[in-house]
């Protein structure tokens, strides 16, 4: 395992939709919320000229020689409450954290980067407990994540903390303030980091180079063999195995597109690719249908969650009233 080091981040990057989705979660929640941040840390290739001395192996803490690291937040989970994986003293509760991590489908290039806290009508400074949680999370070496593109394998602690707050004085215009911090183990303090919002457009072309999809298309073994006469004899015996495989592939494809036959994938490659455009358009259309049906499910699920939450709130309110008698 690579050594965990306290390297300074240059900035924290987050895609516009991810940030918007976090803000949406925050503003639609009944109270304060927190959650975990996922993503990756990349070492930016330095724009070195040939005559620049190669000194990246010297002291990593000095700013001039330190590698330029960018933490990119690609996703998050928000259990819709506070104290979701830590206690009131700010100590991380490992079983709760593991439960959250397991619930989050671990995908390609997604590591735990840190956590976030979103609180209504409070100052946009880290609180007593938030500092403690971040320090505790950063100290768990098993959670450290590898720095990608690094010259030598090096790990970084999940040291990112994203703070959301709304102004104490209510305003006519909804304002959401956000700040990113890196917890530095060497100095035991928060370093404020700039937040880079990645959007689509020419200004962000550089990001396309290091882009990797969060939900990649499933790996399906496309059967390139044409059903020629040569295979006809064998087709009987292997048909059962084949059928099972096709069914599996179909299941996986159904996760992405609704009602698109696996067999149709064959049309996208090989000599049948002449109808490429129409086939691809069909696939995209089916994908959109899938997204729509998912959205409907989410909507009805949300309605149920909302119902339960308001029921719980009423119960809590009752307990709260009864508590002082």
């Amino acid at each position, binding site marked *: 395992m690579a050594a965990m080091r306290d390297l300074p981040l240059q900035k924290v990057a987050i895609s516009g939709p991810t940030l918007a989705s976090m803000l949406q979660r925050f503003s639609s929640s*009944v109270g*304060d919320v927190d959650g975990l941040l996922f993503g990756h840390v990349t070492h930016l290739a330095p724009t070195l000229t040939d005559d620049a001395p190669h000194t990246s192996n010297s002291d990593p803490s000095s700013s001039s020689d330190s590698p330029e690291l960018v933490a990119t937040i690609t996703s998050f989970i928000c259990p819709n409450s*506070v*104290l979701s994986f830590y206690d009131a*003293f700010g100590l991380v509760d490992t079983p709760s954290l593991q439960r959250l991590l397991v619930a989050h489908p671990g995908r390609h290039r997604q590591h735990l980067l840190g956590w976030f806290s979103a609180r209504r009508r409070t*100052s946009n400074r880290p609180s*007593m407990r938030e500092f403690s949680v971040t320090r505790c999370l950063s100290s768990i070496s098993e959670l450290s994540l590898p720095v990608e593109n690094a010259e030598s394998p090096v790990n970084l602690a999940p040291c990112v903390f994203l703070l959301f707050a709304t102004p104490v004085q209510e305003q006519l215009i909804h304002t959401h303030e956000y700040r990113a911090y890196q917890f530095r183990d060497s100095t035991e303090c928060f370093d404020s980091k700039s937040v880079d919002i990645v959007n689509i457009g020419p200004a962000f072309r550089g990001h396309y180079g290091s882009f990797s999809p969060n939900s990649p298309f499933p790996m399906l073994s496309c059967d390139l063999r044409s059903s020629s006469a040569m295979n006809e004899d064998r087709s009987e015996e292997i048909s059962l195995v084949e059928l099972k495989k096709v069914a599996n592939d179909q299941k996986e494809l159904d996760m992405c597109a609704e009602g698109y036959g696996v067999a149709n994938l064959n049309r996208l490659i090989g000599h049948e690719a002449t109808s490429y455009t129409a086939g691809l358009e069909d696939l995209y259309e089916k994908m959109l249908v899938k997204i729509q049906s998912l959205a409907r499910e989410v909507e009805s699920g949300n309605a149920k969650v909302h119902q339960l939450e308001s029921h719980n709130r009423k119960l809590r309110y009752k307990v709260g009233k009864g*508590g*002082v008698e």
Partner: protein
Amino acid sequence: MPYDGFPPLISSQLQYLLNHSSHLIKVEQVWSGTKYFPGAFDRFTLVIPYCLDFIRWDVVYNAELPMAPPDVIFAAEDEDFHPLHADTKLLQGILCNWNFKDPTCLFNLIEELRRKYVKYQTNLVERVDDDRLKFEISTIISREGIEMHMSSGTDKPEEVKFAVPLMDMNINKMVLACPWRHQQKIYLQVVYPVGRKYLSAPSAPRLKLMSSAELKALFPVDEIKLPSWVDGMCLAEYLPHLEELLQKQVLEAVSLIDVRRHFIEALAPLFGRPLEADPVFCRKATFLANSGPFTFLVHVSISTQFPKQPPSLMLQSTQHVNPRDMPVKSAIMNEYPWSPRWEVMLMAEKIHEFLFDECLNFKRYCNESQQQ
């Protein structure tokens, strides 16, 4: 009351804190962070006295989870104050064994955090690289209740402030029927500019006596002339002398309460029983008087310098109001025949005589203001 509008669990804890803290903690601002109960307050700013100044801490509860312990956001200048450390077992116990039904929880939390804050500031001050300051700290650090504060900012010079509690005497006990809920103390505020270099003749620190506003009713510390600071002096030399001086003056101030009481009692046979009088410090009394059909109030206010200074008198008509519907009042009168060597009976008689003439002027003044 500041705790109206809170969910009952939070309210009882806040109420307990405000009523039981040994420091006069106040609530500056209350508001709500919930979406569905905007009327249910769950966050507030506490104003906590520290080092003769105030620190402001935001206490953030969650009205959705009133059973959970609150979080605290400290002031922006205290961004390095992180009290939740592995070695703070007491705080851990308070926060992790939070019992929402126990109204003392918030009190325990804030008191412990304040103790941590005292330590944090002391550490900051002790780390300052200034030889003179290091020496001064070493001589006074053992004083019980001393507090220090490091103030530094980009736009102001670095300074270290000490709040030195003076005199080991219980002023509360010396006052009969003492109304003070908190133990009264007189503090010397000492402000040192941070020099970082040893100077052969370091400048004198800025000195100021401080006390609560309550104590000023008995002993106005602002009027005390501090002994001068001789070049090359240190606090350990200065303090005993100052304490001796103050001790005498406090004793005298306490004995003056009785002198004022006798004076008010001496006024009673001439003016009748006072309508209202300050029974503890005897600084104020109000009598009802009349001149023929014209009845008026006589407000007598007695300074702590009495009998050196005559009491201030003010008349107020019971029959005339000004255009704003306020009773007509006279100007404050200090200039009348007076001698501090007179007996209190004679003082009272002289005031009575003076007012006998003065009330006619006042009556004329009232009638004139009525006609306008």
